[in-house]
């Protein structure tokens, strides 16, 4: 039974699917978004799980959200408000720890307590990284280069990138080559001596990956920290008022304003393919078939192709590539409702030091050991945590005087030694491990807990459709980036199934609340007259 026809149907109302929908609707296309969950947003969602306490359930900060998307979709007008984080705090058990501030002088004073030399080098490092970040942006704001193509346009794009690369200053050229191949720790070792500084800095290299801080290929993610363009300031991270669900809501509102229709609690069972071209979708439950000129996947690629399309519609090479596609989730999330603010013993008080992200990353070896445990199939006994208190930025997140704590937890490998399906059995103990870890830096925290939501990678898969719990829809490793994301030859949103397009984190330029894949996909489709 047919229940309507659209120019484009977007399957999955994560922030990328919504972004694609908004761009197409803005260009006058009739667009329908189908989201399985009762609420849009996917991994960028805010929900109330304990009365009065709102959790930014999965993602919790905004860093790479493309400013041009914010402008194009007028997200500020649709309610998006970004509050820059004030600090990056690394508590220690035996002292005040290290806090990095927006004010370079204050940061230098902090670092000086660990190393005079590092304090001097730190600003220089920031400057160099800023330059490299500018070069890297050329990659995330354009479609992926195609080294296997002989099309003049692709050759010109490659040539242009090559020239830009060689036009970098001498020392930046070296840094650029190092940062794409080194481990975060090896890279930082070339600049800094203090473990207390290198540890929290190296963390950004491992977030969301099943790699350690000493694994090659983790250095380049350090750049993300220097790409921040929050509100025109070069602050790296921001909190969205209302949690990351507010980002999705703003995009959804913009899409609706341009005429897009969004249906929630509408899981799609199948993407219909006839004679090699996508013609529509079949809804789960009702079995209703909706037809469209193009179908756009806002889901992870393996799920899209192997579950919703079916292998028989794919060239054999692609099925093999997709089965190999590395998801291997490595992180979990714990959201806690607190009766009162839990102070950090090394630096007490509710001062500016907690008005940012708080990293439990006391040393490089600590992070490295956390990874070692995960490698062999257990969650870290002492994990790396990235904590924020959303209620400090936005009091509406919790009742007066009370707080919410958001803890990103790594490592929590999807592939446990006794299998991913054993996660429900381990979930509670995993949550306790996180509390134990927090308690070491903030004694008494445990007694303030009113409610706790523990999301293992297994839960992220079951609940949010994040296959294998991978928060980025696929490991951001060199072999799965740029022209290889998600598979060699299929990195430009188009797929071997005609009229089926990819527009989420498993496409170039990858995961994070960035909105780039959704926007670039929609722009390519419009440019190519595909819709």
């Amino acid at each position, binding site marked *: 039974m047919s229940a309507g026809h659209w120019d484009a149907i977007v399957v999955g109302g994560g922030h990328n699917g919504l972004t694609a929908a908004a761009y197409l609707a803005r260009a006058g296309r009739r667009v329908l978004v189908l989201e399985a969950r009762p609420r849009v947003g996917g991994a960028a969602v805010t929900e109330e799980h304990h009365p009065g306490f709102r959790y930014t359930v999965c993602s919790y900060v905004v860093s790479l959200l493309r400013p041009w998307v914010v402008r194009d979709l007028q997200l500020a007008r649709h309610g998006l408000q970004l509050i820059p984080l004030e600090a990056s705090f690394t508590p220690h058990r035996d002292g005040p720890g290290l806090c990095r501030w927006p004010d370079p002088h204050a940061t230098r004073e902090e670092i000086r307590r660990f190393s005079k030399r590092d304090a001097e080098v730190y600003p220089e490092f920031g400057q160099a990284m800023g330059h490299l970040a500018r070069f890297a942006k050329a990659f995330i704001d354009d479609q992926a280069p195609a080294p296997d193509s002989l099309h003049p346009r692709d050759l010109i794009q490659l040539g242009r990138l090559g020239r830009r690369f060689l036009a970098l200053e001498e020392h930046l050229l070296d840094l650029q*080559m190092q940062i794409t191949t080194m481990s975060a720790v090896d890279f930082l*070792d070339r600049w800094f001596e203090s473990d207390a500084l290198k540890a929290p800095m190296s963390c950004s290299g491992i977030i969301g990956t099943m790699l350690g801080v000493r694994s090659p290929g983790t250095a380049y993610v350090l750049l993300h920290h220097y790409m921040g363009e929050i509100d025109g300031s070069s602050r790296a991270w921001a909190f969205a008022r209302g949690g990351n669900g507010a980002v999705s809501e703003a995009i959804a509102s913009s899409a609706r304003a341009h005429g897009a229709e969004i249906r929630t609690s509408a899981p799609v069972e199948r993407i219909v393919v006839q004679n090699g071209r996508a013609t529509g979708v079949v809804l789960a439950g009702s079995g209703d078939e909706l037809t469209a000129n193009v179908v756009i996947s806002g889901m992870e690629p393996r799920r899209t192709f192997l579950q919703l399309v079916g292998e028989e519609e794919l060239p054999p090479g692609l099925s093999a590539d997709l089965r190999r596609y590395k998801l291997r989730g490595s992180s979990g999330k714990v959201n806690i409702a607190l009766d009162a603010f839990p102070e950090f013993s090394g630096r007490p008080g509710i001062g500016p030091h907690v008005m940012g992200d708080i990293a439990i990353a006391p040393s490089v070896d600590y992070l490295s050991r956390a990874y070692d445990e995960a490698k062999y199939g257990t969650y870290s006994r002492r994990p790396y945590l990235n904590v924020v208190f959303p209620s400090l930025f936005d009091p509406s997140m919790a009742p007066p005087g009370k707080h919410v704590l958001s803890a990103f937890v790594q490592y929590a490998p999807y592939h446990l030694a006794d299998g991913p399906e054993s996660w429900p059995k381990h979930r509670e103990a995993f949550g306790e491990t996180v509390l134990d870890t927090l308690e070491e830096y903030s004694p008494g925290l445990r007694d303030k807990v009113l409610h706790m939501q523990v999301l293992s990678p297994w839960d992220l898969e079951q609940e949010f459709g994040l296959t294998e719990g991978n928060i980025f829809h696929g490991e951001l490793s060199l072999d799965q980036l740029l022209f290889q994301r998600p598979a060699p030859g299929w990195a430009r949103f188009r797929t071997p199934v005609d009229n089926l397009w990819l527009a989420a984190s498993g496409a170039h330029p990858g995961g994070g609340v960035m909105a780039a894949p959704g926007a670039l996909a929609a722009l390519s489709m419009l440019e190519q007259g595909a819709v």
Partner: protein
Amino acid sequence: MSWDAVIIGASPEGLAASVTLAREGFKVLVVDEAATPGGAHAADEFHPGFTAPGLHHDLPLSPHLFDYLDLGSHGLEAAAPPAIRVGEVTHAGDLTSSEGPLSTHGAWLARPRKFLHSVATSAPPPIAAEASAWPALAKAFALRRLGAGTLNTLLRRGPLSLRDYLEELEVRGPAAASVALTGLAGSRLGPFDPITTPGLLFRAVTAASEAVGGGAGLVDSLVSAAEAAGVTLRTGVSVQRVRVGPLHADGVEIDGAMQETRTVFVAGAPEPLLARWLDPLAIPPELEQPLEGWRARGDIAIVQLALSAPLAVDGEPVARLRTATSLVQLERARDAVKYRGVSEAPPLDARQWSLSRPELAPEGHHVVTVHAHGVSLEATRSFSEEDRAALGERVVALLDDAAPGLAKSVLAQAVLTPADLEARGLQGGHLWHGEITLDQSWVMRPSRRLSQYSTPIPGLFLCSAATHPSPFALGGSGIEAAEAALE
């Protein structure tokens, strides 16, 4: 005395450079602080009558040793490396073989093999705005000519971890552990780490043949060629200083006497350049920074064994034996190194030289060298005599597990920890003077600028194993550096 070139380090690279230069009419002096030439490849009589032909187990040769230096007429021979026994499995020493447990790996490599071989064995292209882009473009075209399919497969598999790469090719069990060990040698990484596959690919395509007679066999022929070309070789000397004149590096002080020269080559560890040889005020930052950031932290201890009976498994003597039978064992050994420790069960790689070269041991006796992977430089720097002996015992016991009866036949053993190797002049106790990871390879070995062998000091050249292609093509760096100087 006045020379055209003074080469510090009678390593294969230094000797290859000397022959190249002398044949162009240069007056060349090669010096080495050790008593015998060869550096890490020198023959070592570690027990009376028992000689190890160098410290290295893999001896890939630069093709130019034959086609350009014609060392064939100075006794150099190349042959297929011996088969490797690991657990219940034996696989070819030629890691591109399309037969046996590595067949899938060998089969797909057939397509990009020539391309990879040329990258692995020739000078890296210069990467700089003012340099000619042609060498780099030529490599890019050669890559492109492989066809989109092979190109994509190579670019996708290249950055993989060895675990993923081998799993994809369905190479499993002991054979997987064995090739992974080859791929990881020289790095501190484990098979689970990404970007560990390039190490294997480069080694695989250069492992089809090796120097007969080990490193010492190569050194003998190089010394013979050097003498024939009129090179002066002095060993057992001490180098005090490299003098930089107003125009270029123009002197080397050796045993208290200044040797005037037009060029200076560093063919051993680059470290003493900064630490001892150059006037600190004469060191430009473009030389200092890359060498200071250079990682060379050894993680292989070497145990030399004098045996009264051959190393044998199931009654069959084996030329090469490895003990790690799973990737997890390798990964765990690297974990120990990461924390600057010593692995409880270091994966072993043993070579029995005397099988093909009986003259290395008294009649009926044998020489085996064992590489124990997973022994960090940092730990061994504070080793006591007892620690060293205990490590030797552990290695013998572990080897005895794989080759029962071995322990009983050990007449003598010598243990060389990374700290000992460091004392012998290997930078960081590292067999290649620097870790072999992608960021320290090819166009970045030892840095982008220095990869072209010349340095910011005119007349000063680098050509040790800390430059490409030496780790994959012995002698290659020496020849390329000499060529760069001749230009």
